[in-house]
């Protein structure tokens, strides 16, 4: 049996003949000798699945790690008893509680991981125990996420691979596997509709629908290995990762202290957390769906109520003026007058409106009004250009009317001439 022969060749070291034979024989195959794969494949069904999974582009397999590198045992032995004996270091399938440790043997060893990548982090294990998942696991709860629940088991892709379950666009679905499980979440007293809320909100729309990889997935706010909900007092720190200028304005505003005192969760107090609605100027209202009216009332000791009304009025005025300017430009464009310059400025004024909407987070009327004023100045210019464009159209139209009248007169003249001419010839004949 050739099988046996090769086997023997592999086991006998050092002899000259052998090394010569080694060069000639399929050396690679000897090294890859892997009884785990061979047997498990043959056994089929669930027992074969790990092998099949490994062959789907698993990162470990592609780095030439074999079954035994994680599970221990002796893949060179044909005998299952020997190959999977604890004497040979066989570990088998780790229990849920043991999974983090199982992975951490390599993944928290910087010296070892450096063999594969110099930039790969090795602090996940440590962080994990600080996470809600890890803390629960430590307390004996085994229905929490360990490494494999998010990353998969035998088909693991690096996070930068779009096929990965932890690729940004896939993260929400991955978390939802557990966090959307009603029974499980009820057990821990948690919300199970987070995914639905997130997907309906601005961030979910941006990431899941527009595939904007810059938009936050669950882990961008909650962390990944050290996942915890951000505390009430640090929400703004999380949001400011991206919404830097808005957060700055908020943190320097009187709202910061007031919210702290009331234990209101900063940004989330108005904007909510998962189901974040696209902001509307209506939010500034003191009535109806407006946020300001939720805390401020007409008999406020401070000026909050009044300020809210005035801030809203300022923003509204800029928005309305801008809409008017835009419709002027639009009207001129429809009439065929070129308005490129004005459109460019209009974009500036839209930027100014964005800035003013940002400025409301200072809840400082003067600052908002200053910002609005800057926007209004630009908008005025746009309107003026729009009016000029419409004037230009009027100039064109009147020019057309004048020339048309002249041409019509010319037509009449020619017609008179024809008549005169023909009457003459007629009367002659």
């Amino acid at each position, binding site marked *: 049996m050739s099988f046996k022969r090769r086997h023997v060749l592999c086991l006998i070291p050092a002899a000259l003949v052998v090394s010569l034979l080694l060069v000639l024989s399929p050396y690679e195959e000897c090294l890859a000798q892997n009884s785990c794969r061979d047997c498990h494949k043959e056994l089929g069904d669930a027992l074969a699945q790990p092998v099949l999974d490994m062959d789907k582009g698993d990162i470990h397999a592609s780095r030439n790690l074999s079954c035994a590198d994680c599970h221990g045992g002796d893949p060179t032995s044909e005998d299952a008893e020997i190959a999977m004996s604890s004497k040979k270091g066989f570990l088998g399938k780790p229990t849920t509680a043991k999974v983090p440790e199982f992975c951490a043997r390599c993944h928290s060893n910087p010296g070892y991981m450096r063999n594969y990548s110099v930039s790969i982090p090795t602090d996940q294990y440590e962080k994990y125990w600080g996470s809600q998942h890890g803390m629960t696991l430590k307390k004996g709860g085994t229905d929490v996420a360990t490494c494999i629940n998010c990353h998969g088991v035998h088909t693991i892709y690096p996070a930068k691979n779009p096929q990965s379950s932890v690729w940004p666009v896939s993260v929400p679905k991955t978390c939802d596997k557990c966090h959307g499980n009603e029974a499980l979440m009820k057990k821990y007293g948690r919300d199970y509709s987070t995914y639905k809320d997130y997907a309906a909100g601005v961030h979910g729309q941006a990431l899941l629908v527009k595939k*904007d990889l*810059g938009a936050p997935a669950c882990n961008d706010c909650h962390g990944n290995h050290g996942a915890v909900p951000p505390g009430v007092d640090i929400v703004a720190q999380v949001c400011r990762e991206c919404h830097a*200028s808005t957060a700055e304005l908020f943190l320097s505003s009187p709202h910061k202290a007031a919210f702290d005192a009331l234990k209101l969760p900063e940004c989330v107090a108005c904007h909510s957390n998962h189901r974040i609605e696209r902001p509307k100027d209506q939010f500034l209202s003191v009535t109806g769906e407006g946020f300001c009216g939720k805390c401020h009332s007409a008999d406020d000791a401070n000026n909050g109520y009044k300020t809210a009304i005035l801030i809203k009025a300022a923003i509204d005025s800029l928005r309305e003026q801008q809409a008017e300017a835009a419709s002027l430009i639009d009207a001129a464009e429809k009439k065929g007058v070129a308005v490129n310059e004005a*459109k460019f400025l209009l974009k500036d004024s839209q930027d100014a409106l964005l800035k003013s909407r940002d400025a409301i987070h200072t809840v400082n009327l003067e600052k908002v009004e200053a910002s609005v004023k800057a926007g209004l100045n630009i908008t005025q210019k746009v309107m003026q250009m729009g009016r000029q464009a419409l004037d230009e159209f009027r100039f064109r139209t009147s020019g057309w009317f*004048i020339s048309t009248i002249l041409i019509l007169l010319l037509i009449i*003249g020619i017609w008179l001439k024809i008549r*005169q001419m023909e*009457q*003459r010839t007629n009367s002659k004949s």
Partner: protein
Amino acid sequence: MSDQKKFDPDRRNFINIFLGGVGIASLGAVLYPLISYLIPPKVTEATPTTLKVAKEDDLVPNTAVMFQYGRNPGILLRTADGNFKAFLATCTHLGCTVQFRPDLGVIWCACHNGRYDINGINISGPPPRPLTPFQVNVQNGDVYVSEAKS
């Protein structure tokens, strides 16, 4: 109209004068736009590829100015060591206009805290790509930008 009137030379003269007058006026109405069209406009070229955007001395190191390039905003910045760099100022994330932050030494997008280094490379935040660079030339104290040759 009576028969005699038809032969009235006054009337014929009138028609000729009328025709002449209206004819010349109409010709004017046609020629006016045509001649205006022939006068070269202020901007003499359809696609000016090179734009003068600033004076060298007006821009101290570690500051920036905005300029308009075609229909797009541009940003010209002078680095701390005195060099000029220019980019299309449109953020590669969602298209907000970026600005230079001398305090951070980066080009910054206020919308989602996107950052680019002074070479326009996206270094943090959502922007997926570097900013589009312009070529910058300084001549006789004037700074010119033009589309970068790829």
